[in-house]
Protein backbone atom coordinates (compact mmCIF):
# COMPACT_ATOMS: atom_id res chain seq x y z
CA UNK A 1 0.00 0.00 0.00
CA UNK A 2 1.20 3.41 -0.97
CA UNK A 3 2.71 5.56 1.66
CA UNK A 4 0.40 8.16 3.23
CA UNK A 5 2.71 11.03 2.44
CA UNK A 6 3.01 9.95 -1.22
CA UNK A 7 -0.73 9.96 -1.66
CA UNK A 8 -1.00 13.34 0.00
CA UNK A 9 1.63 14.74 -2.33
CA UNK A 10 -0.21 13.36 -5.36
CA UNK A 11 -3.46 14.91 -4.22
CA UNK A 12 -1.65 18.24 -3.90
CA UNK A 13 -0.22 18.01 -7.39
CA UNK A 14 -3.53 17.01 -8.96
CA UNK A 15 -5.17 19.94 -7.18
CA UNK A 16 -2.72 22.40 -8.66
CA UNK A 17 -3.26 20.89 -12.10
CA UNK A 18 -6.96 21.39 -11.55
CA UNK A 19 -6.38 25.05 -10.77
CA UNK A 20 -4.49 25.46 -14.03
CA UNK A 21 -7.06 23.66 -16.18
CA UNK A 22 -9.99 25.54 -14.70
CA UNK A 23 -8.16 28.86 -15.16
CA UNK A 24 -7.41 27.93 -18.78
CA UNK A 25 -11.05 27.10 -19.29
CA UNK A 26 -12.07 30.48 -17.98
CA UNK A 27 -9.57 32.31 -20.19
CA UNK A 28 -10.68 30.31 -23.24
CA UNK A 29 -14.32 31.15 -22.52
CA UNK A 30 -13.55 34.86 -22.40
CA UNK A 31 -11.49 34.69 -25.57
CA UNK A 32 -14.18 32.66 -27.29
CA UNK A 33 -16.70 35.40 -26.68
CA UNK A 34 -14.37 37.93 -28.25
CA UNK A 35 -13.65 35.63 -31.19
CA UNK A 36 -17.37 35.16 -31.77
CA UNK A 37 -17.83 38.93 -31.74
CA UNK A 38 -15.11 39.22 -34.36
CA UNK A 39 -16.98 36.76 -36.60
CA UNK A 40 -20.16 38.78 -36.10
CA UNK A 41 -18.35 42.02 -36.94
CA UNK A 42 -16.96 40.62 -40.16
CA UNK A 43 -20.35 39.40 -41.30
CA UNK A 44 -21.84 42.65 -42.69
CA UNK A 45 -18.77 43.16 -44.85
CA UNK A 46 -18.91 39.63 -46.21
CA UNK A 47 -22.65 39.82 -46.84
CA UNK A 48 -22.39 43.11 -48.74
CA UNK A 49 -19.41 41.87 -50.67
CA UNK A 50 -21.38 38.82 -51.71
CA UNK A 51 -24.43 40.78 -52.82
CA UNK A 52 -22.31 43.21 -54.81
CA UNK A 53 -20.45 40.37 -56.46
CA UNK A 54 -23.75 38.83 -57.43
CA UNK A 55 -24.84 42.16 -58.82
CA UNK A 56 -21.70 42.58 -60.88
CA UNK A 57 -21.29 39.04 -62.11
CA UNK A 58 -24.87 39.06 -63.38
CA UNK A 59 -23.98 41.13 -66.37
CA UNK A 60 -20.41 40.16 -67.10
CA UNK A 61 -18.46 37.37 -68.59
CA UNK A 62 -16.91 35.50 -65.73
CA UNK A 63 -13.73 34.64 -67.56
CA UNK A 64 -12.69 38.27 -67.67
CA UNK A 65 -10.78 38.12 -64.41
CA UNK A 66 -7.59 36.05 -64.01
CA UNK A 67 -8.68 34.77 -60.57
CA UNK A 68 -11.92 33.43 -62.01
CA UNK A 69 -10.27 31.64 -64.90
CA UNK A 70 -10.02 27.87 -64.55
CA UNK A 71 -6.56 26.64 -65.48
CA UNK A 72 -6.48 23.67 -67.80
CA UNK A 73 -2.98 22.74 -66.73
CA UNK A 74 -2.45 20.75 -63.56
CA UNK A 75 1.02 21.85 -62.58
CA UNK A 76 0.79 23.24 -59.08
CA UNK A 77 -1.69 22.90 -56.26
CA UNK A 78 -1.40 25.00 -53.14
CA UNK A 79 -3.00 24.27 -49.79
CA UNK A 80 -3.56 27.00 -47.26
CA UNK A 81 -3.76 25.27 -43.89
CA UNK A 82 -5.01 27.25 -40.92
CA UNK A 83 -4.37 26.02 -37.38
CA UNK A 84 -3.89 27.62 -34.00
CA UNK A 85 -0.59 28.67 -32.50
CA UNK A 86 -0.99 26.62 -29.36
CA UNK A 87 -2.08 23.15 -28.44
CA UNK A 88 -3.99 21.92 -25.40
CA UNK A 89 -7.19 22.17 -27.36
CA UNK A 90 -8.15 18.54 -27.73
CA UNK A 91 -8.14 17.16 -31.25
CA UNK A 92 -8.72 20.62 -32.74
CA UNK A 93 -5.46 20.99 -34.64
CA UNK A 94 -4.82 17.35 -35.35
CA UNK A 95 -8.16 16.93 -37.11
CA UNK A 96 -7.40 19.84 -39.43
CA UNK A 97 -3.92 18.52 -40.08
CA UNK A 98 -5.29 15.06 -40.75
CA UNK A 99 -7.65 16.48 -43.35
CA UNK A 100 -4.87 18.53 -44.93
CA UNK A 101 -2.57 15.52 -45.05
CA UNK A 102 -5.25 13.37 -46.68
CA UNK A 103 -5.93 16.03 -49.30
CA UNK A 104 -2.26 16.30 -50.12
CA UNK A 105 -1.95 12.52 -50.38
CA UNK A 106 -5.06 12.23 -52.53
CA UNK A 107 -4.23 15.01 -54.97
CA UNK A 108 -0.50 14.62 -55.23
CA UNK A 109 -0.67 12.28 -58.25
CA UNK A 110 -2.83 14.81 -60.09
CA UNK A 111 -0.35 17.69 -59.89
CA UNK A 112 3.35 18.11 -60.53
CA UNK A 113 3.86 19.92 -57.26
CA UNK A 114 1.80 20.50 -54.16
CA UNK A 115 2.77 23.53 -52.09
CA UNK A 116 1.77 24.45 -48.56
CA UNK A 117 1.02 27.83 -47.08
CA UNK A 118 0.77 27.40 -43.35
CA UNK A 119 -0.86 29.70 -40.85
CA UNK A 120 -0.47 29.00 -37.16
CA UNK A 121 2.47 27.41 -35.36
CA UNK A 122 0.88 23.98 -35.10
CA UNK A 123 0.65 23.54 -38.87
CA UNK A 124 4.29 24.60 -39.16
CA UNK A 125 5.41 22.14 -36.49
CA UNK A 126 3.54 19.31 -38.15
CA UNK A 127 4.57 19.82 -41.76
CA UNK A 128 8.15 20.86 -41.08
CA UNK A 129 8.77 17.31 -39.95
CA UNK A 130 6.93 15.64 -42.81
CA UNK A 131 6.86 17.83 -45.89
CA UNK A 132 9.43 20.51 -45.24
CA UNK A 133 10.36 20.83 -48.93
CA UNK A 134 6.76 21.61 -49.89
CA UNK A 135 6.32 24.54 -47.50
CA UNK A 136 6.07 27.79 -49.42
CA UNK A 137 5.13 30.05 -46.58
CA UNK A 138 4.90 29.44 -42.85
CA UNK A 139 3.89 31.98 -40.28
CA UNK A 140 2.28 31.97 -36.85
CA UNK A 141 -0.98 33.82 -36.45
CA UNK A 142 -0.03 37.10 -34.88
CA UNK A 143 -2.05 37.96 -31.81
CA UNK A 144 -5.64 38.61 -32.67
CA UNK A 145 -6.51 37.74 -36.23
CA UNK A 146 -5.93 40.79 -38.38
CA UNK A 147 -7.36 41.47 -41.79
CA UNK A 148 -3.92 42.57 -42.96
CA UNK A 149 -2.40 39.17 -42.31
CA UNK A 150 -5.23 37.39 -44.12
CA UNK A 151 -4.97 39.85 -46.99
CA UNK A 152 -1.21 39.35 -47.27
CA UNK A 153 -1.61 35.59 -47.60
CA UNK A 154 -4.50 35.95 -50.04
CA UNK A 155 -2.64 38.48 -52.16
CA UNK A 156 0.40 36.26 -52.31
CA UNK A 157 -1.47 33.22 -53.62
CA UNK A 158 -3.62 35.40 -55.90
CA UNK A 159 -0.52 36.93 -57.44
CA UNK A 160 1.03 33.53 -58.05
CA UNK A 161 -2.25 32.20 -59.43
CA UNK A 162 -2.63 35.10 -61.82
CA UNK A 163 0.97 34.66 -62.95
CA UNK A 164 0.23 31.02 -63.80
CA UNK A 165 2.48 29.57 -61.08
CA UNK A 166 -0.49 27.96 -59.39
CA UNK A 167 -3.41 26.11 -60.92
CA UNK A 168 -5.58 25.57 -57.90
CA UNK A 169 -5.66 26.81 -54.32
CA UNK A 170 -7.49 24.97 -51.55
CA UNK A 171 -8.19 26.40 -48.12
CA UNK A 172 -8.25 23.99 -45.17
CA UNK A 173 -9.49 25.19 -41.81
CA UNK A 174 -11.77 24.39 -38.89
CA UNK A 175 -15.27 25.63 -39.24
CA UNK A 176 -16.77 26.90 -36.03
CA UNK A 177 -20.19 25.28 -35.77
CA UNK A 178 -20.83 25.66 -32.08
CA UNK A 179 -18.93 25.56 -28.82
CA UNK A 180 -19.12 21.79 -28.94
CA UNK A 181 -18.43 21.17 -32.61
CA UNK A 182 -15.72 22.40 -34.91
CA UNK A 183 -15.48 20.61 -38.21
CA UNK A 184 -12.39 20.61 -40.39
CA UNK A 185 -13.40 21.69 -43.89
CA UNK A 186 -11.70 22.34 -47.20
CA UNK A 187 -12.91 24.80 -49.79
CA UNK A 188 -11.59 25.75 -53.18
CA UNK A 189 -10.26 29.29 -52.97
CA UNK A 190 -8.94 29.68 -56.50
CA UNK A 191 -10.18 29.64 -59.20
CA UNK A 192 -12.71 31.74 -57.40
CA UNK A 193 -16.36 30.84 -57.93
CA UNK A 194 -18.48 33.98 -57.69
CA UNK A 195 -21.69 33.51 -55.74
CA UNK A 196 -24.68 32.76 -57.91
CA UNK A 197 -27.73 34.82 -57.13
CA UNK A 198 -30.59 32.53 -56.33
CA UNK A 199 -33.54 33.02 -58.64
CA UNK A 200 -36.07 33.19 -55.80
CA UNK A 201 -34.68 36.42 -54.44
CA UNK A 202 -35.22 38.25 -57.69
CA UNK A 203 -38.86 39.09 -56.95
CA UNK A 204 -38.33 42.32 -55.05
CA UNK A 205 -39.19 44.76 -57.83
CA UNK A 206 -37.43 47.91 -56.67
CA UNK A 207 -34.19 46.02 -56.04
CA UNK A 208 -34.15 44.96 -59.67
CA UNK A 209 -33.04 48.43 -60.74
CA UNK A 210 -29.56 47.81 -62.12
CA UNK A 211 -26.60 49.72 -60.78
CA UNK A 212 -24.65 51.96 -63.08
CA UNK A 213 -21.11 50.64 -62.91
CA UNK A 214 -18.22 53.05 -63.19
CA UNK A 215 -15.92 52.89 -65.11
CA UNK A 216 -17.00 49.43 -66.34
CA UNK A 217 -17.91 46.04 -64.87
CA UNK A 218 -14.50 44.57 -65.66
CA UNK A 219 -12.70 47.22 -63.64
CA UNK A 220 -15.04 46.74 -60.71
CA UNK A 221 -14.64 43.00 -60.92
CA UNK A 222 -10.89 43.47 -60.90
CA UNK A 223 -11.23 45.32 -57.60
CA UNK A 224 -13.85 43.02 -56.13
CA UNK A 225 -12.56 39.54 -56.78
CA UNK A 226 -9.23 39.90 -54.91
CA UNK A 227 -11.17 41.35 -51.99
CA UNK A 228 -13.58 38.45 -52.00
CA UNK A 229 -10.63 36.06 -51.91
CA UNK A 230 -9.11 38.01 -49.01
CA UNK A 231 -12.32 37.90 -47.05
CA UNK A 232 -12.49 34.12 -47.53
CA UNK A 233 -9.06 33.71 -45.96
CA UNK A 234 -10.00 36.18 -43.23
CA UNK A 235 -13.15 34.23 -42.47
CA UNK A 236 -11.17 30.99 -42.26
CA UNK A 237 -8.82 32.61 -39.75
CA UNK A 238 -11.69 33.96 -37.66
CA UNK A 239 -13.48 30.63 -37.63
CA UNK A 240 -10.23 28.96 -36.70
CA UNK A 241 -9.71 31.38 -33.84
CA UNK A 242 -13.20 30.87 -32.43
CA UNK A 243 -12.90 27.12 -32.90
CA UNK A 244 -9.57 27.03 -31.10
CA UNK A 245 -10.94 28.71 -28.00
CA UNK A 246 -14.09 26.63 -28.06
CA UNK A 247 -12.10 23.42 -28.37
CA UNK A 248 -9.77 24.49 -25.59
CA UNK A 249 -12.69 25.36 -23.38
CA UNK A 250 -14.25 21.94 -23.89
CA UNK A 251 -10.94 20.16 -23.44
CA UNK A 252 -10.16 22.03 -20.26
CA UNK A 253 -13.60 21.43 -18.87
CA UNK A 254 -13.10 17.71 -19.41
CA UNK A 255 -9.66 17.92 -17.84
CA UNK A 256 -11.03 19.72 -14.78
CA UNK A 257 -13.68 17.06 -14.41
CA UNK A 258 -11.06 14.34 -14.66
CA UNK A 259 -8.96 15.93 -11.94
CA UNK A 260 -12.04 16.02 -9.73
CA UNK A 261 -12.52 12.28 -10.20
CA UNK A 262 -8.86 11.65 -9.60
CA UNK A 263 -8.87 13.69 -6.40
CA UNK A 264 -11.91 11.79 -5.21
CA UNK A 265 -10.34 8.39 -5.76
CA UNK A 266 -7.03 9.51 -4.28
CA UNK A 267 -8.78 10.87 -1.20
CA UNK A 268 -10.54 7.55 -0.79
CA UNK A 269 -7.23 5.77 -1.10
CA UNK A 270 -5.67 8.17 1.39
CA UNK A 271 -8.43 7.59 3.93
CA UNK A 272 -8.17 3.84 3.53
CA UNK A 273 -4.43 3.94 4.05
CA UNK A 274 -4.86 6.13 7.10
CA UNK A 275 -7.49 3.81 8.56
CA UNK A 276 -5.27 0.82 7.87
CA UNK A 277 -2.43 2.52 9.70
CA UNK A 278 -4.68 3.25 12.70
CA UNK A 279 -6.00 -0.28 12.74
CA UNK A 280 -2.57 -1.83 12.63
CA UNK A 281 -1.41 0.52 15.39
CA UNK A 282 -4.39 -0.50 17.54
CA UNK A 283 -3.72 -4.16 16.93
CA UNK A 284 -0.12 -3.63 17.98
CA UNK A 285 -1.18 -1.89 21.21
CA UNK A 286 -3.74 -4.54 22.01
CA UNK A 287 -1.31 -7.40 21.38
CA UNK A 288 1.31 -5.57 23.42
CA UNK A 289 -1.12 -5.22 26.35
CA UNK A 290 -2.17 -8.86 26.06
CA UNK A 291 1.45 -9.97 26.14
CA UNK A 292 1.95 -8.13 29.45
CA UNK A 293 -0.96 -9.89 31.17
Amino acid at each position, binding site marked *: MANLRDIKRRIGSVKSTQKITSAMKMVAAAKLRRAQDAIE*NARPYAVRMRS*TLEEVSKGTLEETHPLLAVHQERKALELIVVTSNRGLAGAFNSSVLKLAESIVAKREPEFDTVGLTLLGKKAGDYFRRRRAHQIKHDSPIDGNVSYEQAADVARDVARRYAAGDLDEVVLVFSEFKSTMTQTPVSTQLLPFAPPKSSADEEDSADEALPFEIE*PDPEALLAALVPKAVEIEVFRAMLENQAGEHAARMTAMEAATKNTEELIESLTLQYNRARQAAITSELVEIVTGAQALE
Partner: protein
Amino acid sequence: MALELVVVTPSGEALCEEVEQVVLPGEAGDFGVLESHERFLTPLGLGPMQIIGTGGSRWAALSSGFAEVDGTRVVVLVDSCALASDIDQDASESRRVAAGSELAALPDVEENAGERARLAAVVAKAELDIDVAGR
Protein backbone atom coordinates in the same frame (compact mmCIF):
# COMPACT_ATOMS: atom_id res chain seq x y z
CA MET B 1 -29.86 66.18 -45.44
CA ALA B 2 -30.92 62.71 -46.09
CA LEU B 3 -27.84 60.97 -47.26
CA GLU B 4 -26.91 58.01 -45.12
CA LEU B 5 -23.24 57.13 -45.07
CA VAL B 6 -22.31 53.61 -44.03
CA VAL B 7 -18.69 52.52 -43.94
CA VAL B 8 -18.15 48.79 -43.47
CA THR B 9 -14.77 47.14 -42.89
CA PRO B 10 -13.91 43.51 -42.20
CA SER B 11 -13.65 44.32 -38.50
CA GLY B 12 -17.13 45.79 -38.33
CA GLU B 13 -19.17 48.84 -39.18
CA ALA B 14 -16.82 51.80 -38.92
CA LEU B 15 -19.31 54.61 -39.52
CA CYS B 16 -23.02 55.01 -39.90
CA GLU B 17 -24.36 58.54 -39.96
CA GLU B 18 -26.39 61.14 -41.80
CA VAL B 19 -24.34 63.51 -43.91
CA GLU B 20 -24.84 66.34 -46.40
CA GLN B 21 -22.22 65.24 -48.82
CA VAL B 22 -19.35 62.81 -49.02
CA VAL B 23 -16.28 62.98 -51.23
CA LEU B 24 -14.77 59.58 -52.01
CA PRO B 25 -11.43 58.59 -53.54
CA GLY B 26 -12.62 56.75 -56.64
CA GLU B 27 -10.07 54.83 -58.64
CA ALA B 28 -10.75 57.12 -61.58
CA GLY B 29 -10.53 60.25 -59.42
CA ASP B 30 -12.29 61.75 -56.43
CA PHE B 31 -16.02 62.17 -56.65
CA GLY B 32 -18.63 63.80 -54.48
CA VAL B 33 -22.00 62.31 -53.65
CA LEU B 34 -25.03 64.39 -52.75
CA GLU B 35 -28.57 63.32 -52.00
CA SER B 36 -30.47 61.73 -54.93
CA HIS B 37 -27.32 60.69 -56.67
CA GLU B 38 -27.80 58.16 -59.43
CA ARG B 39 -27.42 54.51 -58.37
CA PHE B 40 -23.92 53.37 -59.13
CA LEU B 41 -21.08 51.11 -58.11
CA THR B 42 -17.42 51.97 -58.35
CA PRO B 43 -14.07 50.79 -57.05
CA LEU B 44 -12.22 53.03 -54.57
CA GLY B 45 -8.50 53.46 -54.24
CA LEU B 46 -6.37 54.30 -51.26
CA GLY B 47 -7.17 57.89 -50.38
CA PRO B 48 -8.87 60.41 -48.15
CA MET B 49 -12.61 60.60 -47.64
CA GLN B 50 -14.23 63.91 -46.82
CA ILE B 51 -17.44 63.79 -44.84
CA ILE B 52 -19.41 67.02 -45.04
CA GLY B 53 -22.16 67.40 -42.47
CA THR B 54 -24.04 70.35 -41.07
CA GLY B 55 -21.30 70.96 -38.52
CA GLY B 56 -18.44 71.23 -41.02
CA SER B 57 -16.30 68.60 -42.61
CA ARG B 58 -14.25 65.69 -41.32
CA TRP B 59 -11.65 63.53 -42.97
CA ALA B 60 -10.93 59.84 -42.87
CA ALA B 61 -8.28 57.65 -44.48
CA LEU B 62 -9.71 54.85 -46.60
CA SER B 63 -7.86 51.97 -48.12
CA SER B 64 -9.06 50.31 -51.25
CA GLY B 65 -12.54 48.91 -51.65
CA PHE B 66 -15.66 50.05 -53.41
CA ALA B 67 -18.72 52.21 -52.97
CA GLU B 68 -22.35 51.47 -53.62
CA VAL B 69 -24.39 54.62 -54.08
CA ASP B 70 -28.10 55.03 -54.37
CA GLY B 71 -30.31 58.04 -53.88
CA THR B 72 -30.40 57.97 -50.11
CA ARG B 73 -27.51 55.79 -49.11
CA VAL B 74 -23.80 55.44 -49.69
CA VAL B 75 -22.34 52.13 -48.64
CA VAL B 76 -18.55 52.09 -48.60
CA LEU B 77 -16.79 48.74 -48.29
CA VAL B 78 -13.10 49.18 -47.58
CA ASP B 79 -10.25 47.28 -45.94
CA SER B 80 -9.85 49.96 -43.32
CA CYS B 81 -11.23 53.34 -42.39
CA ALA B 82 -9.57 55.64 -39.87
CA LEU B 83 -11.03 58.99 -38.88
CA ALA B 84 -8.48 61.79 -38.80
CA SER B 85 -9.05 62.21 -35.06
CA ASP B 86 -8.30 58.53 -34.41
CA ILE B 87 -5.00 58.38 -36.26
CA ASP B 88 -1.85 58.11 -34.19
CA GLN B 89 0.56 60.23 -36.23
CA ASP B 90 3.71 59.05 -34.47
CA ALA B 91 2.81 55.38 -34.99
CA SER B 92 2.10 56.04 -38.67
CA GLU B 93 5.39 57.89 -39.04
CA SER B 94 7.36 55.04 -37.51
CA ARG B 95 5.53 52.53 -39.72
CA ARG B 96 6.38 54.64 -42.74
CA VAL B 97 10.05 54.84 -41.80
CA ALA B 98 10.33 51.14 -40.93
CA ALA B 99 8.63 49.92 -44.11
CA GLY B 100 10.47 52.50 -46.21
CA SER B 101 13.90 51.41 -45.04
CA GLU B 102 12.98 47.75 -45.42
CA LEU B 103 11.83 48.47 -48.96
CA ALA B 104 15.04 50.29 -49.77
CA ALA B 105 17.08 47.37 -48.45
CA LEU B 106 15.24 44.79 -50.55
CA PRO B 107 16.84 44.26 -53.96
CA ASP B 108 14.47 44.84 -56.84
CA VAL B 109 14.40 41.35 -58.32
CA GLU B 110 11.63 39.09 -59.52
CA GLU B 111 11.23 36.94 -56.39
CA ASN B 112 10.89 39.98 -54.15
CA ALA B 113 8.05 41.43 -56.20
CA GLY B 114 5.33 40.32 -53.77
CA GLU B 115 7.17 41.52 -50.68
CA ARG B 116 8.10 44.83 -52.33
CA ALA B 117 4.49 45.43 -53.33
CA ARG B 118 3.39 44.74 -49.78
CA LEU B 119 5.96 47.14 -48.30
CA ALA B 120 5.13 49.82 -50.84
CA ALA B 121 1.47 49.50 -49.84
CA VAL B 122 2.41 49.92 -46.17
CA VAL B 123 4.38 53.07 -46.97
CA ALA B 124 1.54 54.51 -49.07
CA LYS B 125 -0.98 53.78 -46.33
CA ALA B 126 1.19 55.38 -43.64
CA GLU B 127 1.72 58.46 -45.82
CA LEU B 128 -2.02 58.77 -46.33
CA ASP B 129 -2.66 58.44 -42.59
CA ILE B 130 -0.18 61.22 -41.85
CA ASP B 131 -1.67 63.40 -44.57
CA VAL B 132 -5.24 62.88 -43.34
CA ALA B 133 -4.34 63.35 -39.68
CA GLY B 134 -2.87 66.75 -40.54
CA ARG B 135 -6.05 68.03 -42.21
